[in-house]
């Protein structure tokens, strides 16, 4: 009897000890006591694809994150921050806006594994470092490039180009070659360029990409950086030359219809930027060349071909890098990116951004959509087709300077004036001197006391 009692006592003591160990663990806050909120500007397919990345986070950690995609991201984020109720994470495409939040002290640092940091090529780490708030904790990160796009690309339908006969001798490698091709197409009574400036609420930005790309490849990385940083006048030769070069290129086609009422369908001001390339796949093609960022591939893939089916990479669409004008210092590409930042610090938020930066997460999106990772550990074989692989190669190779979209680096007032000027220029190219003078006045005010300097990644 005594032995039995002793046994029971031991059992009770053992159970108590187990309980003492287990209960605190079970009852300890897992950190996932609420759903994390992530805000960004991806809608439609991109939002769905990002949802799959967040599903991966849920599977890996058990934590849930809710994504909210909005056309009015800037307004919503600003209102949330002002009301003291920011989202946990935000995905922003404009470093200029991020800088605003960094200067206000709204960004929160987060720890990131050294190996993850090292997986990002140095060109991209430069950008992340440039977004670091002043007096920030050097052991913490404040931004990660979640996905990137190549902007220095000209898209075409290989079959349609071959049908041009001797006018097509392969992708041009110089500006002179590009203008010759454009002129030849125009001379044949066809429309060389697929133009679409409508991108509500920021209509006109597709034109800013043109000016940026030309300026970079014509006047070089150094001039591009100075211009983006507000240290190069809009009245300077590099900027004027870029606008004039664009105007000359477009002179091969009748850009703006004479009768806006009757020809609204041909008006590039009213044509949506994503749909502008659709006529390229028509029979006969409505246009031949499309200067667009790499994300345009997802738009192409939803076009219905006249013979049925959707355009396929390499067979129906391909791209060539934006050609250089041949000067010194012009080996660079224009890029854009969506940058992840933490606005509300917490353990789950740190976990989420660390997950998004991880190679595991970076592999998901390229596998399902048209996003590109700059994580060098994401293999080229993770991309489904040769066009994507070429884009991914250009985004991660260390030989060229990668220059971030200048209008995204500019203060919002400067950027808005720039997009507005593009629209005006297309309507009235003769107004360029006035436009540039106006833009230079905006420059004087918009940059103010801004002393930050952005440099192109890999430019030394």
């Amino acid at each position: 009897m005594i032995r039995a009692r002793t046994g029971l006592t031991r059992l009770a003591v053992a159970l108590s000890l187990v309980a003492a160990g287990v209960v605190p663990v079970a009852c300890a806050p897992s950190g996932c006591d609420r759903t994390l909120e992530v805000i960004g500007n991806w809608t439609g397919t991109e939002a769905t694809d990002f949802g799959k990345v967040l599903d991966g986070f849920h599977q890996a950690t058990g934590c849930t994150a809710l994504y909210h995609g909005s056309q009015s991201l800037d307004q919503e984020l600003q209102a949330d921050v002002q009301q003291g109720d920011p989202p946990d994470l935000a995905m922003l495409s404009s470093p200029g806006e991020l800088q605003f939040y960094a200067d206000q002290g709204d960004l929160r640092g987060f720890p990131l594994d050294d190996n993850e940091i090292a997986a990002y090529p140095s060109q991209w780490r430069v950008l992340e470092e440039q977004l670091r708030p002043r007096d920030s904790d050097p052991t913490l990160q404040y931004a990660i490039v979640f996905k990137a796009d190549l902007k220095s690309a000209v898209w075409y339908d290989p079959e349609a180009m071959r049908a041009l006969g001797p006018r097509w001798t392969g992708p041009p490698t110089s500006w002179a070659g590009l203008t010759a091709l454009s002129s030849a197409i125009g001379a044949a009574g066809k429309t060389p360029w697929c133009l679409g400036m409508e991108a509500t609420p920021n209509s006109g930005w597709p034109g800013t990409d043109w000016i940026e790309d030309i300026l970079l490849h014509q006047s070089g990385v150094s001039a591009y950086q100075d211009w983006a940083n507000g240290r190069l006048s809009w009245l300077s030769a590099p900027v004027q030359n870029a606008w004039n070069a664009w105007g000359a290129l477009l002179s091969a086609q009748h850009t703006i219809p004479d009768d806006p009422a009757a020809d609204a369908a041909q008006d590039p001001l009213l044509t949506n930027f994503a749909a502008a390339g659709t006529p390229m796949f028509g029979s006969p093609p409505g246009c031949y060349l499309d200067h667009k960022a790499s994300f345009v591939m997802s738009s192409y893939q939803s076009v219905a071909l006249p013979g049925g089916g959707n355009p396929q990479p390499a067979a129906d669409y391909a791209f060539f890098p934006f050609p250089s004008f041949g000067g010194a210092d012009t080996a660079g590409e224009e890029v854009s990116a969506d940058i992840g930042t933490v606005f509300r610090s917490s353990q789950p938020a740190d976990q989420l951004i660390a997950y998004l930066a991880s190679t595991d997460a970076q592999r998901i999106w390229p596998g399902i959509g048209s996003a590109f990772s700059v994580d060098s550990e994401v293999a080229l074989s993770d991309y489904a087709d040769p066009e994507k692989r070429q884009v991914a190669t250009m985004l991660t190779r260390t030989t060229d300077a990668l220059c971030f979209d200048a209008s995204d680096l500019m203060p919002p007032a400067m950027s808005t004036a720039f997009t507005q000027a593009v629209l005006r220029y297309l309507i009235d190219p003769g107004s360029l001197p006035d436009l540039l003078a106006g833009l230079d006045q905006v420059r004087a005010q918009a940059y103010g006391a801004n002393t930050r300097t952005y440099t192109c990644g890999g430019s030394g």
Partner: protein
Amino acid sequence: MTATLPHPITRLPAWWRRRVLLSGRLSTTRIVLARLRAALLLGIVLVLATSYLAYQQAHDTVTAAGSRSAIAVLNASVAQQALIEADAAMVAGLAGNVVQRGAQATTYRDDLALAGQSLQGVGQFDVVGNPVSLDLQQVEGQLTIYSGLVAQAYVDYGDGTATDSARLGLVEVVYASKLMHSGGILDTLHALFLAEQQAFDAQVSSGWLSAPAALLWAVPAAALLVLLVATQIVLARRFRRKLNAGLLAATALLLILAGCIGVITGIEASRLDGTRDAVATVLADRRVTPGALSGGGGTWEARVLDGMCGQAAQVGCGSASLPRGVTPTRQETDATDATDRAAAAPDEYGLRYVIPGLGAVVIASLWLGIHLRIRDYRYEAR
């Protein structure tokens, strides 16, 4: 010698039998009366609990639907109509002369203000929560952009004499209209509206307002009624009296209580149905169709805008037509009717207090009815 227990106690459970034996006072009638009293009290407590729960849930549903969801739905529909009309006025303003532009600018400003107030109303009366609040934030952000685009468009258009600048103004008006119509503000608002409407519909068709929910309390009430009648019969047979007044009062009060609950729940459900129909009428009234500029088609601007709107916004923009036969006066009358019905739908007639109050009286009647009988015949233990 073996002791033989009297007949009734042998049927009692062992623990009860032990208590009775210990008390040393054996009375079959007392045991029966005590058991009946316990069963009746248990029954009335069950009826009160279930009826209170069922009624409260039904009433809360009607209250939430009438005083919150219906109002949120109506506010969302006002915002939709106001925004379509504001956009039409904004476009039409550039197609007319200076006087017409001034009038349209006033309409635009008033409609935008009305939409803003209505969106505040949606936020105030929202019952859906997070998805709607995110949509509301988005609409408000989009409206800020929209207003900015409109302001820029009017600045660029100026007086319309500088052709290139005027053309840019017209283009920007179309950008604004596209933000409103094509995958923009109205789409977000429609998603928000649908969420509120689904919440309202779910409340109107809530299970707590249906007949099966009434069974939750009606079945125990019916069982209690049967038990009351059975008790009357038992008492009448044992004590040779026709009716027990306490039980009779309890029976009558129980019937009154059941009737009150049934009728009042029915009234509230019926009023909510009426509210739903009235809201549906208002929504049909407010199904405004955007269209091409009307009456101003002769100007260059009108022609350009009609062409541009069809191309970019995929809708005609510049006019907004009410459904056939609907006038602003009728819209107002129908909206007032719906709002009045929604406000009047939840009316509990004090049932929240009647149920426990009447229940207490029923319990007292039951207790007294049987207790007095026990006392009358000295069957109480001493």
